[in-house]
């Protein structure tokens, strides 16, 4: 294949940014496409024709395909845009809790969304800061020449010289945000770093497992982590050997905490037993289910735990490289992880002789670029490979043909952090907490009208009511709870005694999902909430399959007619239409996004949260 490149020239700044990722000789590394596009965005603020051509030339990627990738991700822009952009969350966890007011204030201060040459603002889906609504993510381009320190040109992601709130490229988060603070930050003011104690009201409590170090250890200090018991798990894992570790995970009955609840031991055993010499571990840290922020808190406040857990997992399944795919809107988490990986590598906890064991394992960090669908495991792998984040057909499953076509274990952040406890205490001890398939403790993300929003850790089987008590009590005038996320469903105050297990939630037609517990009282405009959820799926559908691509559009349109009282053929006809669209999306979509895109809408209509009872 000969590349045909557009004649447009690239600028010095664009070339410097790309060279910082690709290195000196051009190399056919499609997997560096996202890092290269990020580098251009971070330096210049948008991807010009010349910049894209230069990226294509260096990585030997056809420009049409690179353009297809660049236009897939919301954090990339192929048209000129202000280099400093505030993404203001107007999703279900923020909109009614200051998000819409903030959007109005931003419009007043900076003009309509997208306007402005130097600074601008835009609406955003959930930014994973729901416990501190309203949330803002700042995408702040800074030319490399203006950054302090010297970036390490050989790394896909360079460490940022900025303070803790800023990730590479100088991006930052503000929550709770005011228009004043956002505008000041857009104009260069420093942003304070995250405070883990605010996000985890239980911090420091004695009975915590997953959150035991959150708010207690210094996330930037390996010694602090080790003093709190860090790396005892990896030491034990190396002592007992990979086969025993996989056994313990299986005995523990650990299930995936990202939402699909697949048995972790089954994945690990399949990859560990594969005869393929090349295998991969992937950590799915692309947390973007609306209302979810548990993985963010773990990564920001206890990053070494994730790095250690990945090392245990990688060595157990025979992978030499673990890819850590962090959500693009999580700069503080990314910064903490970059530092943790560096520290771990420097002290021999990563590399070609992990803790003197002679075993090789290292972690490569990659940044997402604004696509909810990339939380789907096969879409994430395509994204890592430098492709559009379109889910793949299964089978083959990732354990057979995953990243780069090789057997791959892909686990969520919380799932992996559980591994440390299982290795330390043994599978049976872990399995003794909870019941059935639901073992161990679980993180829940409480937000909305609760007294003390934040991440809470409780044993599987705790009831929803008990969980709410921890967060300050059942909210007065509670009307409905969105359980499990936008892909989950609404439950009502008469269902608060449901045990929070896979089985218990299924019994009431709900799901644990990613642990979202988003509370609404009776003042809530549920029509607006539902339209936001429908709009979310319409925006985040990758577009690959017809049921989801067109179905999410028709669902949003039909909902609009219903809430506006403009039904075609009457309410019954419209509800039938919605059910028909729901069924084809649920039955025939390629992936979980389409298969759950009607879930919350279906439950809200059944509960009569919108337009009276059906």
């Amino acid at each position, binding site marked *: 294949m000969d590349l045909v490149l*557009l004649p447009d020239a690239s600028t010095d700044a664009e070339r410097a940014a790309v060279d910082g990722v690709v290195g000196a000789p051009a190399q056919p590394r499609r997997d560096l496409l996202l890092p290269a596009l990020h580098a251009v965005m971070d330096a210049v603020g948008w991807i010009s024709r010349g910049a894209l051509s230069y990226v294509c030339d260096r990585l030997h990627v056809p420009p*049409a395909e690179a353009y297809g990738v660049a236009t897939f991700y919301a954090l990339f822009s192929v048209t000129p845009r202000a280099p400093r952009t505030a993404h203001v969350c107007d999703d279900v966890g923020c909109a009614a809790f200051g998000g819409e007011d903030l959007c109005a204030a931003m419009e007043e201060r900076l003009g309509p969304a997208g306007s402005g040459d130097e600074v601008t603002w835009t609406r955003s889906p959930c930014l994973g800061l729901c416990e501190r609504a309203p949330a803002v993510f700042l995408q702040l381009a800074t030319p490399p020449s203006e950054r302090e320190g010297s970036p390490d040109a050989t790394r896909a992601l360079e460490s940022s010289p900025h303070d803790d709130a800023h990730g590479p490229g100088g991006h930052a988060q503000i929550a709770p945000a005011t228009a004043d603070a956002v505008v000041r930050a857009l104009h260069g003011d420093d942003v304070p770093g995250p405070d883990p104690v605010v996000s985890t009201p239980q911090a420091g409590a004695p009975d915590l497992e997953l959150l035991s170090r959150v708010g207690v250890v210094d996330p930037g200090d390996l010694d602090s982590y080790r003093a709190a018991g860090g790396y005892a798990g990896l030491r034990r894992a190396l002592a007992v050997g990979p086969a025993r570790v996989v056994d313990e995970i299986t005995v523990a009955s650990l299930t995936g905490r990202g939402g699909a609840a697949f048995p972790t031991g089954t994945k690990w055993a399949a990859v560990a037993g594969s005869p393929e010499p090349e295998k991969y571990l992937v950590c799915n840290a692309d947390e973007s289910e609306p209302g979810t922020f548990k993985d963010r808190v773990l990564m920001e406040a206890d990053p070494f735990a994730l790095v250690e857990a990945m090392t245990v997992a990688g060595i157990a399944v025979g992978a030499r490289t673990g890819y850590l795919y962090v959500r693009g809107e999580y700069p503080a988490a990314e910064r903490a992880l970059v530092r943790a990986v560096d520290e771990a590598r420097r002290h021999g906890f990563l590399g070609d002789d992990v803790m003197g064991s002679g075993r090789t394992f290292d972690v490569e960090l990659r940044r997402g670029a604004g696509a909810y669908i990339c939380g789907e495991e096969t879409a994430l792998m395509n994204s890592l490979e430098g492709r559009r984040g379109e889910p793949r057909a299964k089978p083959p499953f990732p354990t057979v043909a995953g990243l780069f076509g090789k057997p791959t274990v892909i686990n969520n952040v919380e799932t992996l952090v559980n591994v440390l406890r299982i290795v330390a205490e043994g599978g049976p001890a872990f399995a003794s907490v909870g019941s059935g398939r639901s073992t161990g403790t679980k993180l829940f993300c409480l937000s909305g009208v609760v007294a003390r929003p934040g991440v809470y850790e409780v044993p599987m089987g705790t009831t929803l009511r008990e969980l709410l008590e921890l967060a300050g009590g059942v909210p007065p005038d509670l009307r409905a709870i969105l359980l499990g996320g936008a892909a989950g469903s609404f439950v009502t105050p008469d269902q608060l005694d449901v045990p929070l297990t896979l089985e218990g939630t299924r019994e009431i037609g709900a799901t644990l999902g990613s642990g979202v517990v988003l509370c609404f009282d009776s003042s809530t405009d549920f029509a607006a909430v539902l339209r936001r959820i429908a709009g979310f799926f319409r*925006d985040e559908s990758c577009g690959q399959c*017809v049921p989801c*691509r067109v*179905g999410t*559009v028709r669902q949003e349109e039909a909902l609009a007619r219903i809430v506006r009282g*403009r039904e075609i053929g009457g309410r019954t006809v419209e509800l039938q239409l919605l059910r028909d669209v729901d069924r084809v999306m649920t*039955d025939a979509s390629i992936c979980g996004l389409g298969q759950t895109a009607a879930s919350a809408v279906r439950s809200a209509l059944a509960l009569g949260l919108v337009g009276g009872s059906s």
Partner: protein
Amino acid sequence: MTVVDLGTIRRLVSVTVDDVEHRVPEGATIMDVLDDAGADTPRLCQAPNLTPVNACRVCVVEVEGSRPLVPSCARKVEDGMVVRTDTERVAHSRKMVLELLASANDLSEAGDDVARWQIEYGADPERYGPPGPPAAAGERGNRHPGHHGLPDGETRATVAQPVTVDNDLYVRDYARCILCYKCVEACGTDAQNTFAIAVAGRGFDATISTEFAVPLPDSACVYCGNCIGVCPTGALKSVAEHERREAGTWDPEGETVTSTICSFCGVGCTLELHVQDNTIVNVTSPHDHAVTHGHLCIKGRFGFQHVQNVAPPGEH
């Protein structure tokens, strides 16, 4: 000594479709089984000469043990697999895929099969309201992923937009494009390895595009026309066909097809000359032809003008 290629020896596996057992070679797809059994399985993104992308989902079937329906074009059979095509779930999803596509796209040139399936499955695209206004030229390609205007539901969104004519050989009528990925595959690894076009954008706003939507002459396009050859809906067609359709002189009923061998080089591609009103209007190649697999180059597909440079009567 003559070497006889026996091909790969494949064992037979047993598959049950609608209670009837079939013995088929391992590696076959469910669709292969259905086709052999004479079933009329709808398909849009599937083509015998392309890798399945299973994007359209119109060929779905039920497979025991799988909660979601399964695309028959891509799923390979397994021994003991139990397949059902005769259920209400299957019929519903097929109907809805056809209906959703018809609600967003112009399927008037998608062929007789699609028209028949629309009727057989009972697709009713009009129930989503009247179609919204068409997009201005180029507008759909400039939408930012993750953002769209709040709809009021009064009209249904469609992909309607003007036809793109930016070269002498073929047009791109994306109001008809159902994003089946066939053209992208034919332009890429499945045939031409040119990679001039790809899917750009996201979700409902995804389009088939060159880089920055530049005109085809500025792209890597080599005008092999293999994208036209695989397009199922008339979104990609030759300028000759487009102009005749616009002029109202397109006459598929009066078309004859003549097979010949391309004389431009020594490869020996079989050509099928599609002739209307004593004029060649299109050139194709059979997808099961051992040399072409249905794909041609610019000369074979478009290099026919000299054949019909016949001087009008009375001139030399």
